[in-house]
């Protein structure tokens, strides 16, 4: 029998992904975390970063912006606050948004990265992969 994990990625707005996968790597609170078949039951917070799902002959990428991940009995549930599949990201558009944001924030005298820019940067990074 093939060792598959049933994975679903949910946001409050919609169901982003559902299917069987071989393994998953998600951006946890302070580093990436990998899930393979027969992982111990676990609940973790998610950070801002990416999700990589590996299937037998394909790979899917998503960007995730905070949330929770739960795995129990080979069911992986990702409760994201917001998640976007890689296919829906547009690098040029994101770059423009980032430069706009950075311009307004540097004009306002804020040099620290706003959460908004961190999110956009994570999206951009993934879209360029």
């Amino acid at each position, binding site marked *: 029998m093939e060792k598959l994990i049933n994975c679903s990625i*949910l946001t*409050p*707005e*919609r169901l982003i992904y559902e299917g069987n996968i071989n393994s998953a790597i998600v951006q946890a609170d302070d580093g990436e975390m990998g899930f393979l078949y027969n992982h111990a039951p676990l609940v973790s*917070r998610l950070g801002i970063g990416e999700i990589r799902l590996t299937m037998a002959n394909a790979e899917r990428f998503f960007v995730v912006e905070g949330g*929770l991940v739960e795995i129990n009995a080979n069911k992986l549930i990702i409760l994201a606050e917001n998640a976007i599949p890689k296919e829906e990201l547009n690098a040029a558009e994101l770059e423009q948004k980032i430069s706009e944001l950075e311009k307004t924030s540097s004009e306002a005298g804020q040099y620290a990265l706003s959460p908004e820019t961190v999110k956009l940067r994570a999206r951009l990074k993934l879209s360029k992969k």
Partner: protein
Amino acid sequence: MANQRDIKQRIKSVGNTRKITSTMEMVSTAKMKKMQTRLEQSKPYEEKVSEIIKNLISSGSETADHPLFSANNNPRKILILQITGNRGLCGSFNTKVIENTVNFQDKMIESEKEVLLYVIGKKAISYYNFVNQEMMKSGANLEDKFSFEDASRISDEITGYFLNGEVDEVYVSYTKVNSSVNQQPEIFKLLPIASDKLQNKSTKNELVTDYIFEPDPQNIFSYVLPLYLKVKLYTCFLESAFSEQFARRVAMKNATDAAKDMISELSITYNRARQDKITTELTEIIGGAAALG
């Protein structure tokens, strides 16, 4: 009896109204379907979040002291968040929620509590303005543009009031969707979170898994509780929006049917008036011919 032309004009105007109402019915049906899919998509999320909270509570007792759980034994100030629609023409949808809220408010005032209102929806705002009832805050309902971010903004705001001690309890008054054909106005307590309510459910499901929590239960707990409130509010808004469209659809269907009946009644009156006129003319002609002959 009204003359022929008047009746014809009325038939025409009722026909126009019927066109409008049947179009509105179709629009509401489409919007309602959209809301229903949104609602269905967000339901599993809500269920999962409450499940995680249950697991957390059963994993350790230290989590139960979270400030969002701490009830004030003698609540003085109460906030009611009322969700209604922006527009009318939807039967008793808005009035039912307002009525429910007002009754609840009266009950609270009787037990000497101070009640603050946070009103969403233009219809309800104009009602409270009309009766000179002060509102702490008010805003328009964003209807189909409403996103999770809006829900989290409102939730953060309300949680802020609660944690500051500005209010001791928070209630939500909205329209609950029991099934796709049955909606009821309802009021429930949002804050403090009733921990026993969440726990009771977990006893039913006896199998409690021993989870690993990363980074630690408290950290996840203080993250998941606000998330739970946000999701809860989000679904409340969606349910309200769905009910509004449903109510409007029913109201418009009734209006369309009434217009149909009216048209058929008027047509009969019109035909009678027409027949009447012909008969009068005929008698006149016959009478005239007889006089000549």
